[in-house]
């Protein structure tokens, strides 16, 4: 917004906008400091190993396949034997996964396609929150699996 002396109300609006921008900083600082669910201050994006479908299917057992898509898509169709674990119902679904997971188990997470981030998010969470290694993201996701296993 361009303000000049002939338009005092514009200058006042600018000043107030700066005030509002500054006001929001204060609670944001407290959130960063005290919020139990504050984001981690990582300076680099967490990395997850992606596996092409052929490699994922050749993993040494035991392997757990995790479907990170929304419930209704999992209910419609999923990789045979895959468990559902998505971020929307994380707390409810996690116990089912933990019941079958054992140390040394390999985990393959997938979502819809290459252009989805749900599988990556679930994989990062399993690694960081639960310190589970051997977590992989399926390259191409459900679309790649479906393409390979066409009836």
């Amino acid at each position, binding site marked *: 917004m361009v303000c000049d002396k002939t338009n005092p109300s514009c200058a006042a609006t600018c000043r107030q906008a700066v005030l509002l921008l500054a006001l929001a900083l204060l609670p*944001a600082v407290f*959130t960063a400091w005290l919020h139990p669910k504050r984001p981690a201050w990582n300076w*680099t994006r967490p990395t997850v190993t992606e596996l092409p479908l052929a490699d994922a299917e050749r993993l040494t057992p035991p392997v757990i396949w995790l479907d990170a898509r929304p419930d209704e898509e999992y209910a419609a169709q999923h990789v045979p034997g895959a468990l559902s674990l998505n971020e929307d119902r994380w707390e409810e679904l996690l116990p089912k996964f933990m019941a079958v997971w054992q140390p040394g188990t390999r985990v393959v997470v997938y979502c819809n396609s290459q252009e989805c*981030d749900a599988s990556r998010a679930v994989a990062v969470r399993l690694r960081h929150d639960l310190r589970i290694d051997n977590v992989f993201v399926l390259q191409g996701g459900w679309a790649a699996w479906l393409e390979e296993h066409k009836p």
Partner: protein
Amino acid sequence: MNRLTCTLRLLAGGVFLVAGALKVLDPARFAADIDHFRLLPYFAVAPLALYLPWLEIICGLAMFVSALRRSALVLLLALTVVFIAAITSAWMRGLDIRCGCFGAASTAPLAYDLVFDVILSGVLFWLWRAEGRA
């Protein structure tokens, strides 16, 4: 005062209050949602996830303070235009992500959020014009 203006102001202010509050509940999740747009470097994601919800809440509240309303409208209009640009870019790149506009309550496809934001920006612009005439 015009009843329509008053209703729209209540709705627009309320939308930002609710949207901000839902995101404040889980800033880590909102950070992940921002990151999924693949528009920002990773170091900028956490600060934005902490700041943006509070800016929405403060501006949403300022909509109900007559002295601050004009500046709140300018900021919220600018924010909504940025949201529209971000959602459009994600949509055009074919990203299968959720908007995160309403925190954990965001489950609709991106196109719905885009339509919602376009309508919201129209309402904000109209309110801003109405404010100028007052």
